[in-house]
């Protein structure tokens, strides 16, 4: 793998090589049958979620409770983080603090070097994606094997994950078969999922057995115990950590919950929201290193305190990364995760990423119709669509609106604030539509017209009718 290409995919700002969401979505949709398949696959997950949550009569109260716990935690984050550190240290865990992605990556590289580690496995961690740990380690001559099946597939293909729970959801089994044929030597054209999974299992088993160091994410870190919980369906986090002598767990500062009993709220919400399962197959509790093992926790800020300081957006930090908002999002389902050009895509990504880089991610809050379905499925009740709307205002006020839009909106606001000008403009608009339809019926000048007819303009407006008929 050429790390430079990888970096390009990950890091390029908009206007360099990365396309804006709308452009990338346009490319994605060109393959309409594939778009339909992507949409239907994710809708199926949404429906499974619906069925699962309807089995829990107190579902809405549970969401309220989870939201309350997270709000409380965010308001007392410093205390809970220190308590967590104290308890983890007492358990014999080494705790590291990283202000940003670079520090996070350096800390991990240092642990690797100090211990002369060569073979590393990593289970799913969106934080390490956010910090671009893999390309960083490759640049420093260290190879990491992603052990989540979906992540391994995209890793082979030199692509970032397109979904935070289902990283390879943009790929069909034919694509996976081809990838495995190239990288694992499976039979060309054999698309049998069982055959392919077996090949991956054999391949990964080797990696697990040989691994010296295992990196995992953290779903929940419990302040009162200093322990943490990692949820997977494949058991790959456990396989990795059980075999390796060193375990590094990476977590954002917002992963803290105050007490172990709060797990009973979050574990019930997480898997039901994510995939419609009552609970993830493995919810592994890590409290202290085994005898002879090193356990490290890297606690990362990387923009989170900045977001915490934005009153309108702070509660985006309640997110437990279940991806329910992805699966329900009609835009995400039809544009694919890569069109969001960020580690965390989807609706939540569109309110987290502008915080990290407003300029590069100024398009994302607009990749939504503000339909509000995301906020309704969110197990921690983040008002995602409201924050999307608010980010739009912030981006405009900070000067990130495209010039053409600025001019158009200024003109529109002027016309609509002046009733008499509005009436003339309205008349002219209808006249143009009626008399000179070639001006508006133009697929290059008028995006509406590409796939939709214009409304038929009536001779008179309602106001004209009203004056004639009612007064």
């Amino acid at each position, binding site marked *: 793998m050429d790390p430079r290409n990888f970096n390009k995919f990950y890091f390029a700002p908009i206007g360099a090589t990365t396309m804006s*969401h*709308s452009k990338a*979505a*346009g490319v994605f949709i060109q393959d309409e049958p594939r778009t339909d398949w992507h*949409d239907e696959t994710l809708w199926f997950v949404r429906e499974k979620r*619906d069925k699962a*949550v*309807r089995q829990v*009569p107190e579902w*809405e109260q549970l969401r309220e409770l989870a939201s309350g716990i997270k709000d409380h935690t965010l308001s007392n984050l410093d205390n809970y983080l220190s308590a967590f550190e104290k308890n983890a240290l007492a358990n014999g865990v080494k705790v590291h603090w990283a202000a940003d992605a670079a520090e996070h990556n350096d800390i991990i590289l240092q642990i690797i070097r100090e211990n002369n580690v060569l073979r590393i496995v990593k289970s799913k961690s969106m934080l390490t994606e956010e910090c671009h740990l893999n390309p960083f380690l490759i640049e420093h001559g260290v190879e990491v094997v992603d052990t989540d099946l979906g992540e391994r597939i995209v890793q082979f293909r030199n692509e970032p994950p397109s979904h935070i729970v289902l990283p390879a959801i943009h790929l069909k089994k034919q694509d996976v078969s081809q990838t495995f044929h190239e990288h694992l030597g499976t039979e060309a054209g054999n698309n049998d999922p069982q055959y392919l999974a077996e090949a991956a299992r054999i391949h990964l088993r080797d990696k697990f057995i040989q691994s010296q160091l295992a990196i995992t994410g953290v779903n929940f870190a419990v302040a009162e115990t200093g322990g943490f919980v990692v949820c997977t369906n494949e058991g790959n986090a456990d396989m990795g950590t059980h075999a390796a002598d060193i375990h590094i767990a990476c977590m954002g500062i917002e992963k803290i919950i105050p007490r172990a009993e709060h797990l009973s709220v979050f574990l019930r919400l997480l898997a039901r929201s994510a995939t419609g399962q009552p609970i993830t197959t493995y919810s592994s509790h890590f409290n202290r290193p085994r005898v002879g093992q090193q356990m490290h926790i890297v606690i990362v800020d990387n923009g989170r305190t900045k977001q915490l300081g934005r009153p309108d957006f702070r509660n985006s930090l309640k997110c437990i990364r279940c991806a329910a908002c992805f699966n*329900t999002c*009609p*835009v995400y389902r*039809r*544009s694919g995760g890569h069109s969001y050009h960020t580690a965390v895509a989807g609706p939540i990504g569109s309110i987290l990423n502008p915080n990290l880089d407003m300029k590069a991610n100024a398009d994302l809050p*607009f*990749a*939504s*119709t*503000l*339909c*509000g*379905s995301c906020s*309704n499925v969110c197990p921690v009740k983040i008002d995602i669509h409201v924050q999307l*709307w608010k980010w739009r*205002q912030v*981006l*405009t*006020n900070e000067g990130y*609106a495209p010039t053409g*839009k600025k001019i158009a*909106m*200024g003109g*529109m*606001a*002027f016309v*609509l*604030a*002046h*009733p008499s000008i*509005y009436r003339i403009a*309205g008349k002219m608009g*209808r006249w143009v539509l009626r008399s000179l339809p070639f001006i508006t019926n133009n697929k290059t000048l008028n*995006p*509406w017209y*590409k*796939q*939709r*007819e214009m*409304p*038929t*303009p*009536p001779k*008179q*407006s*309602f*106001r*004209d*009718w*009203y004056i004639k008929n009612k007064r």
Partner: protein
Amino acid sequence: MKVGLFIPCYIDQFYPQVAIATMELLEKLCCEVVFPLNQTCCGQPMANSGFANLDKGCDKNFVNNFSGVDYIVSPSGSCVLHVKEHLHDEDESKSLQIRSHIYELTEFIVDVLAVPNITAAFPHRVGMHVSCHGQRGLHLSSMSELVAPTFSKPAQLLGMVTGLVLTQPKRVDECCGFGGTFCVFEEAVSAKMGKDRVSEHEANNVEYITGVDVSCLMHMEGILKRQGSKIKTIHIAEILNSMEAVTVSN
């Protein structure tokens, strides 16, 4: 009861028949309807595009037009939601008065007028489009994401219409993809979402698609027409105001 009729700009210009139906319907239901002549727009197109800061002129004009009526009623869920959430004035008591007295048409009929029945006849197969802002914003109907009892104010009213057969698309409340300026800035996704909505209604063999928001209907109408479909879009006010003859076969 004096009702100020708020007709959003694009309805005024392109869909006067929806405004006429709304007015006639409210009059049938014994409201005194006034149409303030200098109204233009609620300012939503700017605000949803990130330019809420340009809305002052629109807001001022809105307050000037709609102060002094008992209720403000509009055949557009999304415009009503915008006013409810974002209207401001130098004198905030004026804007708050409007914000707390503005209603989308069907919620006004169900919640304020609370009429036991409506005399209307529309003998057709009609597909219900649930518009997001009316539904998730104004709570005109229950939402498929929530574990809560189901209800629908628009469907309740359509249930009073003689001869009408109401159908639901497979995904009962997925967004149609209009989304204000989203429809041009994210043209590809917007059109795809619209096509998908329309095809679910087609599968139900509907003659019409109806809803509480002209904007969604305009978007779907554009797609239907481009496809050469026979399905028409119609605003709920037009149905509730219609008295088509129902042929009774023995």
